[in-house]
């Protein structure tokens, strides 16, 4: 599936397109199909997200949205070396999920 991710312009936080807005949680990400370009352009122009891009993802065995690239999994969870600073979803997926 194709999902959209970016950073919040104001706070810099990692966000994921949930179909109507931008969520802090990767599990809220929705499949945008062919509409990526259109959504990205609109949302960035409206400054509801900063530097967004489209990535590949799958639903893993645990039912979580799993970005295809390790970099985006690190973005989804937080720095693996500071688990105390993790995004709340980390508790659901477990840290081995990043690798």
């Amino acid at each position, binding site marked *: 599936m194709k999902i959209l991710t970016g950073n919040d312009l104001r706070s810099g936080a990692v966000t994921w397109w949930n179909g109507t807005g931008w969520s802090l949680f990767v599990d809220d990400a929705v499949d945008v199909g062919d509409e990526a370009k259109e959504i990205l352009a609109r949302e960035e122009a409206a400054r509801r997200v900063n530097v967004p891009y489209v990535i590949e993802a799958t639903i893993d065995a645990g039912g979580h949205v799993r970005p295809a690239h390790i*970099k985006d999994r690190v973005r989804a969870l937080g*720095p*693996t070396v500071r688990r105390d600073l993790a995004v709340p979803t980390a508790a659901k997926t477990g840290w081995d999920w990043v690798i």
Partner: protein
Amino acid sequence: MVDARVEEFRDQARRRLEGKLTEDQFKPLRLMNGLYLQLHAYMLRVAIPYGTLNAHQMEALADIAEKYDRGYGHFTTRQNIQYNWIKLEDAADILADLSKVEMHAIQTSGNCIRNISADHFAGAAADEVVDPRPYAELMRQWSSFHPEFTYLPRKFKIAVIGSETDRAAMRLHDIGIRIVKRDGEVGAQFFAGGGMGRTPMIAPMIRDFVPLDQLIIYAEACLRVYNRYGRRDNKYKARIKILVHELGAAEYTRQVEDEFAHMLSVGIEPPREELARIAAHFAPPAFVDGPKTLDRSDPDFALWVDRNTHRHQHDAYVSAVISLKPAGGIPGDATADQMRLMARLAKQYSFDELRVMHTQNVLLPHVRIADLHAVWSALDEAGLGSPNMDTIEDIIACPGLDYCSLANARSIPLAQRISERFAASGRTAELGELKLKISGCINACGHHHAGHIGILGVDKKGTENFQLSLGGSEAEDVSLAKITGPGFDEDGVVAAVEKVTDVYLGAREDGERFLDTYRRIGMEPFKEALYGR
């Protein structure tokens, strides 16, 4: 000046948030104020000119960590500090707070002249010929908001040293300067075209002696030739090292000398009195005589003294290294409370002065030998007393894929595993001086090309993989490390590091360091141990 810049940035950020500036337009502007967009948030890189700061400034850094970030900061391989969890809407306020203590984040990013780095033992080291800091400061002023050199082909890094020993990796900078004395006259030896990154190069010498009152003009000439002729067609070929390499050092030098001759007639050098004023600011503190020996009956203290102190110009003093590398810890990170402790110790024991090292540690430049035990006790209690300077536990690691959007692999977990492994096995002391450096990508911010042992994280079909290299040095015996062969996964590279240290221990002669043994026996014995050929 800094306040003007803060207000300029506040205005730029406002225009960005209002949509008057697109990200493409805003990005170079925020980069010029050290504000990056990284994996998890904005990252702010604060400049610590030639690594020098006082207690008040360190306390301000601690306050910023607490107020705007998540309670910690990271000291970098260019003597700066980075905060990883910054909000754009707070950035101007942070810059204003920094301005109050005469600090800033100017030119810590972007295609401009970056922080001038210098020997972290400047003004203290026993082997120093001339204190490089006044010249670093002169260059800092010259390079700040320079109207001609704000849009260079690429970033530009300058290092200044004042001794034969190179403790600032000077030859691996875009311009490296060694301040020297020839027949009683002080001048500058210029090197240009060094760098690490994708294509590491050692800077050739381009001028053996520039008289002091022409130092700035000569630097200006070097920069102008680069600004005019550095490549702008390819981001990865845009550093000055490529220009020097493609022209050849002789031709680059010729162009610089021509421009220099022209500029001498134009007259841009600051007045001599300014240099004198700056130098006076760096006059040595009022050292006091005292004991030159200490009580070594506590073996932990004795070990720390042997490893973490450095000979001083005054025989009643030493420089003391504060280790930010506890075994299993994150190299270079310090909490707000640890920063405050460092500040207190500096005020009490080191003439209110601290230095950030490019090895991601901090040091107190002037500590009385009589006070060493008190300093060590305080450090030890705060987890800052690891006696591991320049050992295999004193790992340099970039933030890597845990933080950095450029990275291919995580470098910090690797550093943690390696330092833990060697601390647990008790082999650190046996191995002696061993500089291990880890970069999470080819940009080489961990300086792996200059590691006795270097590790580079790469992307192998979406998984993390690590290349091992041996024999690099950032000191005056500068050399670039060579790759051993095929890469390893994380478990594999940890085991590989152990194997190469075994080879060293088995082969070393007469007080050789790892680097010396490698240089004597070559790569083959290490290759055999690693790949069984």
